[in-house]
């Protein structure tokens, strides 16, 4: 076994992470869409703010493909700020002085919730590819079990971008009585052929890595670094816009004055992508990546609910806010409009704004003041209708 292949799980002790862990499914198992039942499984989650006495101020934040429950605090592995630090916190659009924020690591994840790198009780080893194939609906059903465990009848809102937005849509379609407001952001009602195609490239990269070992790398003390890094590099390109890549890197060279007539990272953009790949593999599990991308590919909300997009939200009492970004070509505005059209078709209460940005799909994670202003306004309007007390203005420190 060579050192570079050794997996990084030593620094990745989920039991030592901040937040909470709960075992769900003891009384009644979670029946997955594929037919398998999970009788007892761990869900790791984090909360911010305080639940009010009548439990009406809870917001479920659904994280995206490579996100986790550490929404608004330093990441326990990388030390980087929370992935939605711009959005969640005291005085921020999702104001933790006002709302109680819950975010759980989704089913199949690798930050403490049951997933392919956790222990399979039947074998005592990691699940690996024996882990059942999960879907977005399974993730949401697990979140509902968490909500029951927390004894919260109705969430004030469910919000999320990208894969998080798919979970929001699934929540709204399957459990309309359990949320007051829904904000699906930069997302779609189903995965397009192009979306599936990019994911397939990522999966093939992982599976082509000899260190993947047919999915058994953990029990063999290996870690498919190269494959997972390539998957991340490809995906990362889809999260940015052509113009932002051009503006950020152009054809500039990396720490050199001339091209080297070789295959080193001559260009800054190459160096950047390599860095993205190599840091990602220190905090994400390759098999998780396979399972989660598969769940996204299988997502087709209308098909799962009988084929008609319009029927999905018939008589929905939920206040919706759909937001897209002009430079997002992964889940472009036209996909968000499909959601809006389905909601309009039943005259649902929906807001829809397309925010002008250069940041590509990742815009929902970035500092985009217009997005935050619109999002904050939507939440405040919904809070007024829900009868939540106004936020107490924060006093500035000395």
């Amino acid at each position, binding site marked *: 076994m060579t050192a570079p292949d050794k997996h990084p799980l030593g620094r990745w002790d989920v039991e030592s992470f901040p937040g909470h862990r709960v075992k769900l499914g003891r009384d009644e198992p979670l029946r997955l869409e594929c037919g398998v039942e999970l009788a007892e499984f761990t869900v790791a989650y984090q909360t911010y703010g305080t639940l009010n006495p009548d439990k009406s101020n809870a917001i479920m934040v659904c994280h995206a493909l490579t996100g986790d429950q550490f929404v608004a605090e330093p990441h326990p592995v990388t030390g980087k700020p929370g992935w939605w630090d711009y959005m969640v916190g005291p005085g921020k659009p999702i104001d933790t002085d006002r709302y109680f924020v819950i975010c759980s690591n989704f089913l199949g994840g690798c930050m403490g919730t049951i997933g392919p790198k956790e222990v399979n009780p039947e074998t005592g080893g990691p699940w690996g590819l024996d882990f059942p194939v999960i879907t977005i609906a399974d993730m949401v059903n697990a979140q509902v079990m968490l909500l029951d465990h927390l004894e919260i009848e109705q969430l004030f809102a469910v919000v999320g971008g990208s894969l998080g937005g798919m979970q929001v849509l699934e929540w709204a379609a399957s459990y309309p009585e359990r949320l007051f407001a829904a904000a699906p952001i930069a997302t779609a009602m189903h995965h397009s052929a192009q979306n599936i195609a990019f994911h397939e490239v990522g999966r093939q990269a992982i599976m082509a890595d000899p260190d993947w070992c047919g999915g058994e790398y953990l029990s063999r003390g290996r870690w498919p670094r190269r494959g997972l890094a390539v998957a991340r590099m490809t995906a990362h390109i889809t999260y940015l816009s052509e113009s932002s890549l051009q503006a950020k890197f152009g054809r500039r060279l990396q720490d050199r004055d001339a091209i080297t007539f070789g295959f080193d990272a001559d260009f800054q953009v190459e160096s950047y992508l390599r860095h993205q790949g190599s840091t990602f593999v220190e905090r994400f599990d390759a098999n998780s990546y396979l399972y989660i991308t598969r769940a996204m590919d299988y997502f087709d909300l209308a098909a799962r609910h009988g084929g008609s997009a319009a029927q999905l939200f018939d008589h929905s009492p939920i206040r919706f806010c759909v937001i897209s970004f002009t430079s997002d070509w992964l889940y472009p505005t036209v996909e968000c409009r499909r959601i809006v059209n389905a909601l309009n*078709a039943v*005259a649902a*209460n*929906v807001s829809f*704004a397309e925010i002008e940005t250069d940041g590509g799909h990742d815009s929902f994670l970035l500092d985009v003041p*217009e997005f935050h202003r*619109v999002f*904050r306004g939507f939440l*405040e309007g*919904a809070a007024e209708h829900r009868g939540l007390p106004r936020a107490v203005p924060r006093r500035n420190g000395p």
Partner: protein
Amino acid sequence: MMAESQRKAIRVDLQFIADMIEPGSRVLDVGCGDGTLLDYLVHFKQVDGRGLELSTEGVNACVSAGLPVIQGDADTDLETFPDNAFDYVVLSQTLQAMVAPRTVLHHMLRIGRRALVSFPNFGYWRVRLFLLLHGRMPMSDTLPYRWYDTPNIHLCTIKDFLALCRELGIVIERSVSLDHKSRTRRINSSPFTANLLGEQAVFVLRR
């Protein structure tokens, strides 16, 4: 949310429209701009209101103020709404900017039990006089654009609009013209005078 003091004054034609709307009803404001009317209706008439607006600035201002507004084009997006979904569908000062005003009217009356429409009257005497005296495309407070940059591609007179309603079998429940001092005049009592003296018109329509 707007402060109460900011909510007081809304444009005269908007106030006129607001006064015709039953409290607690369902309202779709097509071309809702920055949401002035919608905000007024939501807070003073407790309506279940929605807006449709083309401009990004307008939509963002509305949603930021907590109003349920979607970004969209009345010419193409009204068809996504179902029949009879609203009590009122409002189109204030926007009809003349539609590519297909006739189709938009059709959809408004399909979606809503009633349509409330206001538009600048191209038959207003000052407009006629402007063209007669200057020989150039009329410009005024209600028609502030030059011919080459105007969004108003389908201007009409009150008589034109009456003729269209007749042609489409639309019932006019109420109709008034407003002159430049915001005095109202019932159109049905004298369409000729209203068409001459009205700077703008407000119609309440049903199928």
